[in-house]
């Protein structure tokens, strides 16, 4: 009858449900979410692309592009840990669902690091 007690207490104390769409997600500090490139720090050294276990990153040293496939990323944090320039970070929340898969490409402005941060351009290919 302990279960009966628990069930009735559930009714009395109201649902514990997190009313998600109404109440937005609260990011947890340190959680591993969507990967972002701080493009002004990036030297396009390809370290991340080489190490990524899932092959979700591609860096073109010549064209100075960093291409990220968020739909292949396994959120393991490895790239962030090994980036020698701390140019990668993870947002505490994951990417939202979408109707189409798209890659994220960041382009470095010029060989000399520019002061402005590049805007992430989503490119539905």
């Amino acid at each position: 009858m302990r279960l009966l007690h628990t069930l009735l207490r559930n009714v009395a104390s109201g649902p514990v449900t997190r009313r998600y769409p109404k109440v937005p997600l609260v990011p947890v500090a340190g959680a591993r979410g969507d990967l972002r490139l701080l493009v002004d720090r990036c030297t396009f050294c390809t370290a991340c692309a080489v190490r990524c276990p899932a092959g979700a990153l591609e860096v073109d040293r010549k064209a100075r592009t960093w291409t990220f496939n968020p739909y292949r990323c396994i959120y393991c944090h490895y790239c962030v840990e090994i980036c020698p320039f701390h140019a990668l970070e993870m947002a505490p929340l994951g990417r939202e669902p979408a109707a189409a898969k798209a890659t994220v490409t960041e382009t470095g402005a010029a060989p000399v690091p520019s002061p402005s941060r590049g805007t992430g351009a989503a490119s539905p290919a």
Partner: protein
Amino acid sequence: MKPFLDRVAAFCRGKSVWVLHYDCGSCNGCDIEVMASLTPLYDAERFGVLLVGSPRQADVLLVTGTVNHRNRLVLRSLYDQMAPPKAVVAVGACALTGGIFHDSYNVLDGADRVVPVTVYVPGCPPKPERILDGILQAAAVLAAGGDGSGGDHMAGAGGPAAGGGGGRGGRVAAGGDHGAPGGA
């Protein structure tokens, strides 16, 4: 009368989403998050989402896991057994692109090589909230009169033609269109 009834049915489709979950070769991470989305803290039933066992009763096919060559046929069969209008939600990196397993000999890089995917839910695994988002997006597509099977030119993609050839290790350039890159 008929347009009115159609509008009613469309409204109900958006409010009542019965989901068939198929673990297409997942590590269980996404599966238990799908299950968790039914539990009190997330309570998918708030939105009329119900997990059903038989594909004939389902409106949404929720795929988790790498689609391997044995499961490819199963996935296609389940999809074909669902009555239209229907939608497919792919959950987790493996079902989206093969994830960390994308270049294995036995893995197709993405469920969309076998069935047309309506919504992609990224994550490894995605949080239950994100899974709910994905299901509701699919429900919205159904309510708007859409049918995930629209443009399904992949019938028979479960056949040998869909061998996990393309997309090895390289960039996932193609996305959006429901047709699989190199599928049909």
